[in-house]
């Protein structure tokens, strides 16, 4: 029997990064490399892709790959258990950014936990790996690999059956709609960053999986004058680049969403459809007034996002129906937009609460306002009472106080391991105050990290 390959199991939930591997995918004529968590990936989703582990990136008997050599020489290993995962994140980083700055390094490594080093030496390795020569068989064989990927990406839908379990991977939206009519109970699998845990943590047997990752239409993006139509299969990392220019805070919340490994897989449609009260995209999208397009068979229906969430674990989606598209308003219909995520750790944490604010002023009065929170109720939820308290009133401290007082009408949060109900209530109110502080012309710093944050990294 052979030894285990190096990707290591550290948590089985995509949080520690010890199992990080790199997936190579065709992007035009090139191969694009992205880091993912192996522990929660379904094998069949790798069809048509290149899988790289720490054993693959340097040739046997040669010097090591620059990522490997830099990490060793800069003292970036201690116990070494997390190391193969770090190496693969560094490999992906090197293939995407030649000379990353500290913030980019932090983002690339946020999904790799190291308990020994304190990270400084690993950051040194990330900064300096481009200075190392070394064995780079993958990089040197790019055109060959691209040709190989083109060969195996034949556009034929994949269907697998094993031990009574079914796996469908349709390649277009019509096939998908048809399969879901036949299998209304099927589990829709996109990035798998939640469903993977049903297997690794809950030990569930999944009977029928329909994989959305190969459905071409779901990854389309169209930018209109007043909105961006985002296919449900667009990953959160792709979405980050799309929305950050319009809404820097949306970009920042997505930067802090999971880790790069998670965002490389997780999709916007998946985050919405999951219906989690602490999914970070939903409160932002509700505040912006986003709309869904749901499709069942040939029928499409639009739905304001906030109406999709009915109760904990219950969404407004019929059997056989799937989210095809999310339309995110841009331009004049959106006012001042801010979003805030509060968590115990800045990076790669789940929100204790997440608040989003969209305010339009006219002559100093609140003309329109949309406020939504995650982590404050059983679903991502709009703050109608707070909005009412603000609407038509001058944008001043008194109004904000009235808005903060109205918060208890909208939300009765719970105590859990991420925070007490009391903290959630106080902080939610304070986020409204923070929003006011950031939109009333004040000159004082209001943030520690991210856009305008005090702790800018060097």
């Amino acid at each position, binding site marked *: *029997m*052979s*030894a285990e390959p190096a990707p*290591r*199991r*550290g*948590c*089985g*939930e995509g949080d*520690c990064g*010890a199992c990080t591997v790199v997936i190579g995918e065709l992007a035009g004529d090139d191969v694009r490399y992205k880091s993912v968590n192996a522990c929660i990936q379904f094998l069949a989703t790798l069809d048509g892709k290149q899988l790289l*582990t*720490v*054993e693959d990136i340097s040739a046997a008997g040669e010097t090591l790959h620059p*990522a*490997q050599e830099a990490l*060793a020489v800069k*003292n*970036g*290993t*201690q*116990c*070494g*258990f*997390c*190391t*193969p995962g770090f190496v693969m994140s560094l490999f992906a980083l090197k293939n995407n950014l030649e000379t990353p700055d500290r913030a980019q*390094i*932090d*983002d690339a*490594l946020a999904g*790799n936990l*190291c*308990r*020994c080093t*304190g*990270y400084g*030496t*690993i*950051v040194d390795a990330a900064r300096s790996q481009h200075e190392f020569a070394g064995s780079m068989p993958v990089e040197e064989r790019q055109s060959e690999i691209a040709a190989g990927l083109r060969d195996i990406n034949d556009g034929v839908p994949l269907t697998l059956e094993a031990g009574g379990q079914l796996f469908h991977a349709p390649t277009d939206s019509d096939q998908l709609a048809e399969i879901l009519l036949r299998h209304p109970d099927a589990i829709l699998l996109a990035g798998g960053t939640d469903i993977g845990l049903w297997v690794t943590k809950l*030990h569930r047997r999944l009977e029928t999986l329909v994989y959305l990752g190969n459905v071409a239409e779901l990854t389309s993006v169209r930018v209109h004058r007043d909105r961006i139509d985002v296919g449900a299969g667009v990953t959160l990392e792709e979405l980050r680049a799309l929305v950050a220019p319009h809404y820097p805070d949306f970009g920042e919340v997505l930067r802090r969403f999971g880790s790069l490994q998670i965002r490389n897989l997780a999709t916007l449609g998946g985050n919405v459809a999951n219906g989690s009260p602490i999914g970070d995209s939903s409160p932002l999208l509700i505040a912006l007034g986003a709309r869904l397009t749901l499709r069942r068979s040939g029928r499409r229906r639009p739905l304001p996002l906030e109406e999709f969430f009915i109760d904990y674990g219950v969404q407004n989606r019929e059997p056989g129906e799937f989210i095809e598209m999310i339309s995110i308003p841009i331009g004049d219909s959106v006012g001042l937009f801010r979003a805030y995520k*509060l968590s115990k*750790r*800045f*990076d*790669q944490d*789940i929100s*204790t609460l997440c608040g989003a604010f969209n305010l339009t002023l006219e002559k100093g009065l609140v003309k329109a306002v949309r406020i939504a929170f995650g982590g404050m109720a059983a679903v991502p939820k709009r703050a109608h009472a707070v909005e009412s308290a603000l609407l038509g009133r001058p944008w001043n401290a008194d109004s904000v106080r009235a808005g903060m007082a109205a918060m208890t009408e909208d939300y009765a949060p719970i105590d*859990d*391991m991420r925070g007490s109900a009391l903290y959630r209530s*106080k*902080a939610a109110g304070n986020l409204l105050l*923070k929003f006011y*502080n950031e939109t009333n012309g004040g000159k*004082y*710093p*209001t*943030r*520690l990290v991210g856009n305008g944050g*005090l702790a800018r990294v060097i």
Partner: protein
Amino acid sequence: MSSELPVHQENPDHREGMDSTIDSGVFQRLVHDSARKQTSGKASYVDDMPEPYGLLHIYVAMSEVAHADLVRLDLAAVRKAAGVASVLAAADVPGDNDFGHAHCGDDRVFAEGKVEFAGQALFCVAADSIESAHDAAKLAVVDYAERPAVITIDDAMRAGSFLGEPLRLTKGNADRALAAAPHRLQGSITTGAQEHFYLEPQVSMAIPGEDGDVHIYCATQDTTAVQHLVARVLGKSANRVTVEVRRMGGGFGGKETAPTQFAAIAALVATKTGRPAKICLDRDADMLMTGKRHEFRFDYDVGFDGQGRLAGGDFKVAARCGYSLDQSIPVLQRGIYHLDNAYFLGDVTITGYPCKTNTCSSGAFRGFGSPQPTVAIERVMDEIALYLGLEPLAVRKANIYDSSDRNVTHYDWKIEDNILPRILEELEASSDYRRRRQAVKDFNGENPWIKKGIALMPLKYGVGFTARFLNQAGALIHVYQDGSVHLNHGGTEMGQGLFVKVAQIVAEELQVDITRIKISSTTTEKVPNTSPTAASTGTDLNGAAAQIAARTIKGRLMDFAAEHYNVSKEYINFHGGLVTIGNRDITFEELVGEAYLGLVSLSATGFYKNPSIKVDPVTLKGRPYHYNAYGGAVVEVAIDTLTGESKVLRIDILHDAGRSLNPAIDMGQLEGGFLQGIGWLTCEELYWDDAGRLKTHAPSTYKIPACSDRPADMRMQLVDWSENHEDVVFRSKAIGEPPFNLAVSTFNAITDAVASVADYRLCPRLDTPATPERILMAVEEIRDRLSGLER
């Protein structure tokens, strides 16, 4: 031979005047011996080993409740399930159903009649796959008759639930000192628990041998304890059990006693079935079952003068020990010793309460009971400063041990090598502390929402096993005929760089390049009766033992060369892979070859002991440590007063590692320990619900520092003029644990930032970890208290 060792050598000042020419000896910067194997995926951990034929995979079923009588445990259906080879519970243990370590406690391998915490092992299932084992375990019928559970320290103190008599240490007359002091303050502070979160979970693989013997590959910091305690569980003698570990994926104290239980379960299955058996916990099981850093609560009553100088105090120290003793008493004892951190306490009464709770058994964790009292006494310093309106550093300087008569600890050990005043002076200047403190105050005066804080703290850290018998170590060195060297010792490698440091010592002694030295797995077959690799003593003990073994072989080679070449020993010199014998140079391997032919033994053991440590078990007075390591840190933070979020902006550290054996490795321990400390004090929060169930048992809910939590501006220095005044190997000092305690400066800085909200007139009521929630609540509370004062 290991061909990949030396990289990146520099010759630090410590080598000046040394006559060797090797560049892989002591005081040199070598990368970790496994670094390239680790980055290329070739470094093997227990779970990576090729799986032997017929391997069984073990799942352990846990109690779902915190405290109950086990009314029924029906495993019949489990035994019949597909793929199951063996199902074992308490009744199936042939020896003692107890893996409690020496002088420690009563830890059941499997629950017997009752369960005392949610997560306690009930039984195990060994099957062809872990999935089959897991599925089968679900078929068990378990009936509990629940009893009231004691979950928190407050619950335990109220109920009088303890694991033993309180510990008490007194010096002078605290009551009189308190009564006579010009000022007096009372307060309390709680420090949170901490999960080790070693990246490699607990793992053991047991291979059955002849005569019912068993060989266990186990991720453990203490091979000898695993050997002896597994033998006790099996009802066999210790010579029937071999325990081996090449490396661990992190330990931090969490693999000191906990692995014994899982090694025992694997060995039970292997010896019962005659098949190899592996247990590798998943993360959730690991966090639910195994011990953590003790939560502590301190209640203090201190008296002091107008300069903030302590006259004395009364301290009540309560530790949450969990359901069993494990190492709680020695942890609590260190909790009492380290209440001084670096300060002369005056007359004190300190009472320590080992609280028994229905939670997992708290155990060893880097610092071993010393970080918690460091938080407490640092809080006292800050509270005094805020009360008197003094600069916090001035109060700390007023209390620091000095060369006057204020140089004897509360446990009556005289401090004779105090280099702290010089360290603080240098650090205060290099960190630009005074200017920056003013800048922080200016910032806070101008800014309503974000507040900054800054703090400088000193550190004294006692190094050594307070349990006297543990201060011993063994090593085994073979030199083969070709001059290659096999090195073995009782220390274990968990990433801390012990193996490369010990190899450097041997390279230095034999004057051969380190690539000639084969570093090998720790195993009870080669070096017996070892101590745990713990208490920061790994290099002090095992390095010294290896040095003795190397010197023994070198001595024999000298004797042989003197006789063989008829040259007086004073004209024989080992240097740089060569041996100069009179006026001729021969290579080390040539001399070795000749010595072999000359009937010289080229294998030697080394045994080291340090008998200097001794304390009175009743009064707790004496010398609990071999020596002290010192250091200082300055941390600057910012907090958001609307959300409670905090961010470390800059860290300056000056730390004493004596004459550092390997500055690259030591700096890694310094930075890593400090960041781990920041995690404990800020983002790492263990949360038990009211029923005693741990709700944070995976990295999705338990947050250790991530890359961005390491501030961009981190300036670390080792003291380059220090050397150990005790006879420790090459005058180095331990580095594993002390940096963890330095991180308390982060909490002090957060305290300072919160205090700024009340214009530095009141002391914040802030416990650890300083999560956003705790900081926000402390900000609101101090603001309310201030407005109460002003009304």
